[in-house]
């Protein structure tokens, strides 16, 4: 298996290189034979990378500890499920998995464009193959997943197979961790498709709106995966890491947020190009930036140049990534420069009070946010380069910038749908906004009287009312028209409305999901926590709740040792149930891990952690009271549902 995987990886090298060259040449000379050869190379590359990936999975399943990667990321007693997912638990496997996903996307693009976009496809194929080549290159030269263990003995290398592996990092032994990386990677890798089409369209001078139409679903799909991946990552951090939060502005988190910000800006700005023929350069640059940021994010986390809790160890892949990125930036922006004459705008921005201008501010602010996140993440390196000392910035820096930006975007998402293209008259403004503004002010005053005095939280909740009202008004207006026209009852009128124009109404549902997510995040302004050492029978109180330790026990399983507290939770004397926060020590990896208990309700979470065994023999228990966290996850689900609606084909009227 080890040899098979190795051979597949090595063969991938010439195949991708040959395919990329022949495909490009075929496109340039318009010779179908070359183009077909390029496409066959892509199919072959996909098969080879699949072979390598499945070999590694097979090694995990068979406990092939002669393989260094398997020995370092698995052990005999690891549940079968996690043996498969160990594939992406380390650097070498992650890069291989990434490359496999590239292959999957490549095949799907190939199959769906057998008769369409024939002029663009040779270049698209070529770009996909070049990407695969670079990842194969990194796997072979810097992070080979098929290295065997061996030790030097009197001048020669003797292979050996350890009796058991070192185990999978216990933090990764969690269901969310099983789906979070693949989904996030599907997002990262997915942006290669719109990127490749944008490049191909530019190169062939057909960068009208066609490449946007071709790649609209692709970019939306990648964006959806990226969004879902980020929310799942936050969810994993919340339930598994045991610090009571879900977002810490860690470099790895920032790495996934940056392409999301530019990708979101792109999804909005393409509408301007479609409607008004503007912003052509901008859109091409945005999608290139998004894909390059995806690669950059991986570079950041894999190279170890920025220290992070969950970054992988320092390794030479950094240099290869830097090379790939530099070439990517050079070529993509070089092509934009070469084709700049082709990207002239057909019209110009209208009034400040117009739909276009709201998109302009949307894009400006998304980009500024992305730049701020990039700046903060890279600051330790930048300051070292400029001033010779490393200075880091913490969460206050990111929060200070991104909270106001987020609120501004929230405001825009309520404002924009009611603005007309080109110019909005004051009369129509007054008509559209009277109700939302009155409701927003009423909500703000009511919340203030209900003692919501945290400024940002208050603004966030009030703006949420504003956005929800404008979204509801849009659905109401559309539904009313359909009722008048077709006599449909309300539920069917709304459903048909969405299916007739899934992109617009799906978009509103995405916005609604974002509102819920913002409400959940704003709840964190009221987070509280207490930490105390408790013996059996002792109690701890937090915000109306009380928690009493009933029993403390210690024990062991084949995989880990544990210390566990059984606690009863009650609110104002009323019992709410028995909970078992636990602390584990995984023997194979010699790593402790907290198993937290969370009591969730729509109003707040009570989050219980067995922090450690205390100096007096009791359990050090930490309890967090986190209001409204549930809405972050619900908002994430609504956002994904809205995104799926956007992907639906438009339903034609059949009457």
């Amino acid at each position: 298996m080890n040899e098979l995987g190795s051979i597949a990886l090595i063969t991938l090298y010439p195949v991708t290189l040959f395919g990329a060259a022949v495909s490009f040449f075929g496109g340039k000379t318009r010779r179908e034979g070359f183009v077909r050869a390029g496409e066959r190379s892509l199919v072959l590359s996909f098969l080879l990378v699949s072979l390598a990936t499945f070999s590694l999975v097979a090694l995990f399943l068979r406990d092939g500890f002669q393989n260094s990667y398997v020995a370092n990321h698995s052990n005999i007693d690891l549940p079968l499920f996690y043996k498969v997912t160990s594939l992406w638990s380390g650097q070498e496997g992650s890069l291989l998995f990434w490359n496999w996903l590239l292959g999957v996307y490549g095949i799907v693009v190939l199959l769906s464009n057998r008769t369409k976009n024939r002029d663009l496809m040779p270049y698209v194929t070529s770009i996909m193959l070049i990407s695969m080549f670079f990842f194969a290159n990194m796997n072979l030269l810097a992070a080979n997943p098929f290295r065997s263990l061996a030790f030097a003995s009197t001048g020669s290398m003797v292979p050996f197979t350890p009796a058991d592996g070192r185990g999978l990092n216990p933090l990764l032994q969690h269901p969310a961790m099983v789906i979070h990386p693949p989904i996030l990677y599907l997002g990262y890798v997915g942006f290669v498709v719109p990127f490749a089409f944008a490049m191909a369209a530019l190169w062939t001078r057909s960068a009208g709106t066609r490449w946007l139409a071709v790649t609209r679903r692709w970019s939306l799909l990648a964006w959806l995966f990226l969004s879902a991946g980020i929310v799942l990552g936050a969810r994993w951090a919340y339930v598994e890491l045991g610090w009571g939060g879900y977002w810490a502005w860690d470099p790895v988190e920032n790495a996934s947020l940056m392409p999301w910000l530019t990708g979101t800006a792109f999804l909005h700005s393409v509408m301007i190009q479609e409607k008004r023929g503007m912003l052509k350069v901008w859109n091409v640059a945005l999608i290139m930036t998004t894909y390059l940021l995806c690669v950059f994010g991986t570079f950041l986390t894999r190279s170890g140049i920025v220290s992070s809790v969950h970054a992988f160890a320092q390794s030479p892949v950094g240099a290869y990534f830097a090379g790939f990125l530099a070439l990517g930036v050079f070529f993509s922006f070089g092509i934009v420069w070469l084709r700049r004459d082709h990207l002239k705008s057909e019209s110009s921005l209208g009034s400040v009070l117009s739909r276009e201008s709201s998109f302009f501010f949307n894009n400006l602010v998304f980009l500024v946010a992305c730049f701020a996140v990039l700046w903060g993440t890279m600051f330790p390196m930048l300051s070292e380069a400029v001033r010779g000392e490393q200075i880091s910035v913490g969460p206050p820096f990111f929060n200070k910038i991104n909270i106001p930006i987020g609120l501004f975007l929230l405001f825009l998402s309520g404002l924009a749908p009611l603005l007309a293209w080109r110019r909005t008259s004051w009369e129509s403004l007054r008509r559209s906004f009277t109700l939302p503004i009155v409701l927003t002010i009423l909500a703000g005053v009511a919340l203030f009287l209900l003692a919501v005095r945290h400024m940002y939280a208050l603004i966030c909740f009030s703006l949420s009312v504003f956005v929800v009202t404008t979204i509801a008004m849009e659905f109401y207006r559309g539904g009313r028209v359909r009722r008048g026209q077709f006599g449909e009852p309300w539920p069917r009128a709304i459903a048909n409305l969405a299916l007739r124009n899934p992109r617009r109404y799906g978009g509103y549902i995405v916005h609604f999901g974002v509102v819920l997510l913002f409400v959940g995040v704003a709840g964190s302004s009221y987070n509280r926590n207490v930490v105390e050492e408790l013996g059996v029978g002792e109690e701890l109180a937090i915000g109306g709740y009380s928690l009493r330790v009933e029993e403390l026990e210690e024990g062991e399983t084949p995989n880990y040792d544990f210390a566990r507290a059984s606690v009863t939770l009650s609110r104002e004397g009323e019992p709410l149930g028995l909970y078992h926060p636990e602390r584990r020590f995984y023997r194979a990896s010699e790593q402790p891990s907290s198993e937290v208990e969370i009591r969730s309700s729509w109003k707040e979470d009570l989050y219980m952690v067995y922090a450690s065994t205390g100096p007096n023999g009791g359990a050090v228990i930490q309890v967090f009271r986190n209001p409204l966290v549930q809405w972050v996850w619900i908002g994430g689900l609504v956002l994904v549902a809205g995104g799926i609606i956007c992907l639906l084909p438009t339903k034609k009227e059949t009457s």
Partner: protein
Amino acid sequence: MKGPTKGRFLIAAVVVVGTVVWLAFTGFEESKAYYRTVEEVQAGEAAGRRLKVGGDVEEGSIEWKDDGLHFRLTQEEHVLPVRYRGADPVPDTFKDGSQAVVEGKIGADGVLEAVKIQAKCASKYEAEYGAEAAETEPRYPGS
């Protein structure tokens, strides 16, 4: 684009970017922390500033006391006593011998008052390079 409209957009853009730059500057002043080695800290550099110091957690030095978690951070022959009283629980990866980065200010008694601890188990999950790693790895009984 017409002159006055263009001007309005420009003003609006400048206001937005200017606000963000101002926010960035104040946020930076609030949260910047200087990376220092244990040796530099002991030489009395950068007292009064918020510091980030990295090192290994000295074996057997972790002690829970009433006034917080005490331990010593070592880097070669240099040792720095640390007291942690932060709001977050100590990370799972924090233990004897792990690599840790602590953030905080030096108190009057020379103890680093940490408000944040990050820790990772060096090389625990990453195979080291080539065969030398396996050679220096005594943990495999089957070899």
